[in-house]
């Protein structure tokens, strides 16, 4: 990857009587950045401002080294080299899938060539068999895949996605998520992804921006931000750390796979992927318990040496513990305050983290 990718910058100050958005944000010009927050936090408005669908006078937007808005200079949406996926399927009902795909593509200035070919987009999203259909003959999941392919076929400099899975049921989400991952792995297009679903964010994002009431309360790498105890995300029921690991060993006898990461390894249920491939795993705080000594005769497979970095209250009777495993990896654990006192846990202490379950993504 190119190290000199220009950052994405958005400075937006919008004030309405009942809502305001006051954001000054710099995010990396590559990978997937999730805009995460409760509804009404301004995620969608921010995305629309970046796309130019919403006008925020006095704001500044620059993407991929191009200034899209600054002072009186406002580049209209149709002149911005972006791709946008709306929350609900937004295919043109009067055009076939093929013509929908071509609608944007034939309007793109192709003098520099297309980075993404139409076939590549069709292939990536597995919609080759749908080309002659009209949108009303597609399922919800298929429609959203076509919408994604249509945006990709523009070879955009940035892909903006506004909760593309929110209108879909769980099964449809599971159908689309792998395609979004492929997109992440195979194309070097930065993605801004609006979501209020923690599992989607943990699965797809590299960088996380937390919004609340129109303000940015945190922005940083996914691992660091999800491991911070001072943010509201830490108090979610499914709070947890994300671990980026490699497939290191297959154990055929016990049907297990060993994943290595900086700081240790985890045994998980068999992962059918080649040696060395990257896997993202999520370890929820409620699935991690703490022992002061290496436990004897435990049924738990994964016991990691860790050092307590921070302890914080997490509602009545409960605390959240952030631990370091190795130099860079964080792990969260949610335990009772009774256990904390009983074990005498303090910051800086070396402990054993027992991981009861690992969710692969």
């Amino acid at each position, binding site marked *: 990857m190119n190290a000199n990718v220009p950052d994405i910058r958005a400075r937006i100050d919008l004030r309405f009587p009942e809502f305001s958005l006051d954001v000054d944000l710099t995010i990396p010009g590559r990978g997937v950045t999730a805009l995460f927050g409760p509804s009404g936090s301004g995620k969608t408005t921010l995305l629309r401002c970046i*796309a*130019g*669908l919403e006008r925020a006078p006095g704001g500044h937007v620059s993407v991929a080294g191009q200034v899209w808005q600054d002072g009186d200079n406002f580049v*209209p*949406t*149709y*002149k911005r080299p*972006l*791709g*946008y996926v*709306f929350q609900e399927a*937004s295919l*043109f*009902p*009067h055009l076939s899938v093929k013509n929908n795909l071509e*609608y*944007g593509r034939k*309007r*793109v200035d192709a003098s520099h060539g297309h980075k993404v070919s139409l076939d590549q987009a069709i292939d990536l999203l597995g919609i080759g068999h749908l080309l002659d259909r009209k949108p*009303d003959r597609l399922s919800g999941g298929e429609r959203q895949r076509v919408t994604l392919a*249509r*945006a990709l076929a*523009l070879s955009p400099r940035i892909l903006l996605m506004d909760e593309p899975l929110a209108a879909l049921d769980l099964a449809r989400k599971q159908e689309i998520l792998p395609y979004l991952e492929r997109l992440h792995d195979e194309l070097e297009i930065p993605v801004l992804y609006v979501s209020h679903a923690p599992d989607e964010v943990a699965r797809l994002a590299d960088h996380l921006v937390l919004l609340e009431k129109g303000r940015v309360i945190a922005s940083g790498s996914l691992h660091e931000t999800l491991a911070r105890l001072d943010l509201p995300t830490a108090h979610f029921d499914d709070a947890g750390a994300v671990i980026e690991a490699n497939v290191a060993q297959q154990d055929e006898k016990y049907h297990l796979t060993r994943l290595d990461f900086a700081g240790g390894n985890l045994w998980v249920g068999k992962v059918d992927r080649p040696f060395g491939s990257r896997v993202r795993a999520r370890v929820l705080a409620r699935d991690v318990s703490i022992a002061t000594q290496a436990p004897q005769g435990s049924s738990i497979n994964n016991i990691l040496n860790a050092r307590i970095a921070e302890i914080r209250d997490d509602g009545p009777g409960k605390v959240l513990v952030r631990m370091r495993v190795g130099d860079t990896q964080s792990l969260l654990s949610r335990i009772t305050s009774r256990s904390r006192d009983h074990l005498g846990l303090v910051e800086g202490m070396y402990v054993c983290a027992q991981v009861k379950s690992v969710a692969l993504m």
Partner: protein
Amino acid sequence: MLLSEGDLGAIILTLELASIVTAILLVLGTPIAWWLARTKSWWKGPLGAVVALPLVLPPSVLGFYLLLTMGPHGPVGQFTQWLGLGTLPFTFWGLVVGSVFYSLPFMVQPVQNAFEAIGERPLEVAATLRASPLDSFFSVALPLALPGFLTASILTFAHTVGEFGVVLMIGGNIPGETRVASVQIYDHVEALEYGQAHNLSAIMLIFSFLVLLALYAWRPNPKKV
């Protein structure tokens, strides 16, 4: 022969008038409907009311004002005379102008409703797909509003065919020029030619019924869009 030469001429003239008026209103009414559908301006209310006026105004009132404006001393009349075209009242083109005003709401309102039903989103989508506003109007808004245009055109055509008061005020009764079917029927009745009045009236009745039948029976299912 069921119809006299005069009746046939009146029918042909009527169809000619209705076609021309519909064509003119498609061009004129569309931008008005577009503006009314999308503006947030204070002027939306007043302009909408003006467009709807012919729905409630007696045709004679409309015809009276048009007669004054287009007459030799009216502003439009002065202008057309200055252009060397003479005055419009009691000519076919005067009738066209009058009918355009008279049928305006029948074109604008269905098209405006169709544009409003499309909403902002498809146009935003088009913008994210590199379509300029004009481009997206022709490639997205028009095709999506097509059922509205069909309804509007049929209504405009039929309404123009059925007009009488305005014609009488500004068109008079000149064969081949302003004597449309409705006026012809009036003439027959005045002359106590009930048989001929019957024939022409029956044709108008059947025509009107068929037009409305087409409109109601073939109206596309709005849920599908």
